């Protein structure tokens, strides 16, 4: 258990901190995530790689916290890390799945690709994206919808 924590926590904490931007909230979200990981480990979906599954839970916990705290996750400045930790699980090469996804995202327009990445890494909501891209909410919704449809089509084949 401790080993699992030691190996995975830098990755998961990095994701939480980037979404929440506040160490206290990121810590709380990560704590919730690990409790949930241990609690639901038995029911872990067999078709999801273990680290990917943990990443999903950590993001979910961070996003819940971000939507709960109005002042969290609204930082506009780029995420900068002074002291990145060495990731024990970092692979030398990117996985095939990532390459395929990046190729897919490459087919989206520049703006919509950035939108998807900002949502994934920075946890930005439709509202935040609307402010950042200076576009009305319904436009953002339409862009997101088209992105989802196009990713769906690309990856379904």
């Amino acid at each position: 258990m401790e080993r699992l924590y030691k190996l995975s926590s830098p990755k998961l904490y990095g994701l939480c901190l980037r979404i929440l931007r506040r160490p206290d909230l990121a810590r709380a979200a990560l704590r919730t995530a690990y409790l949930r990981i241990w609690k639901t480990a038995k029911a872990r979906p067999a078709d999801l790689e273990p680290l990917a599954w943990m990443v999903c839970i950590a993001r979910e916990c961070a996003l819940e916290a971000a939507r709960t705290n109005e002042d969290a996750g609204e930082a506009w400045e780029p995420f900068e890390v002074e002291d990145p930790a060495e990731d024990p699980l970092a692979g030398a090469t990117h996985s095939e799945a990532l390459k395929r996804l990046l190729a897919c995202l490459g087919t989206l327009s520049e703006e919509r690709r950035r939108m998807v990445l900002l949502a994934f890494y920075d946890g930005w909501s439709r509202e935040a994206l609307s402010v950042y891209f200076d576009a009305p909410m319904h436009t953002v919704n339409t862009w997101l919808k088209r992105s989802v449809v196009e990713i769906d089509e690309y990856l379904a084949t």
Partner: protein
Amino acid sequence: MTVNEDDRQFVAEYVLGTLPAALRLMMRSRIAEEPEVAAVARLWEQRLAPLHELAVSIAPPDDLWADLAGSLSPPPVAPPEPSAAPADGTPAGDTAFAIPASVDADEAAPTLAAPLEGMPGSARRWRWVALGLGVALVGLAGGFAYREWGRTGGPYYLASLQEARAASVLVRIDARDGGLLVRPLLDPAPEGKTYQLWLVPDGQPPRSLGVFNSAFATRSDAVRRLGVKGAAKAMLQVTVEPEGGSDTVPSGEVLYSGRLMPE
């Protein structure tokens, strides 16, 4: 049962993270309860998760492991490898996710639902409302009312941490077929009483949509007849009525009320 296009979109955005709080709450509970919806969520998790490979790792606070280990009882068995299935552990506390009431409580007037951003012009068929009105909870001044809404048959618990005076009822209607989904985040009704949900179409008398003490789903002709245009102008109200509910008109005081917002 297949998942319709609208719902597939919501699930994808749930996983991506762009949904506002109230929609997240609803999608979360549907993923937990509907296997078909969960399968779509799993698909999108599989698709998007590889992005984590490009994320920066940061060392978490040093004391977090000790904190977590203290929450685990009995001491769990260490897994052989992270790439193998993680060993099961039993945390002492429940994992609770705090989701705020989507509206602020107001002492005097019924508050409108939190503004879920709409898609003007297009006939969005699913409509939501989050209703809220002050409920006094003695002895919790400055604190939080803690509500837990357990679901049967699953390991998930949902908590809504709200201001002491706040309570809410989530209502989702489908203006096409009259589908109605009600999820109360309330204290149980007093002994011998029940909550009753009323639809108040524009300029017309209230019609009962049913009595409830817990979450329920049904289909209602009154909702279907309302249509998309009628739904935008209708109000929803919750009263406390004697057991069995009131047949015709609300007899109790309106506790919660709100307007339907197009998603």
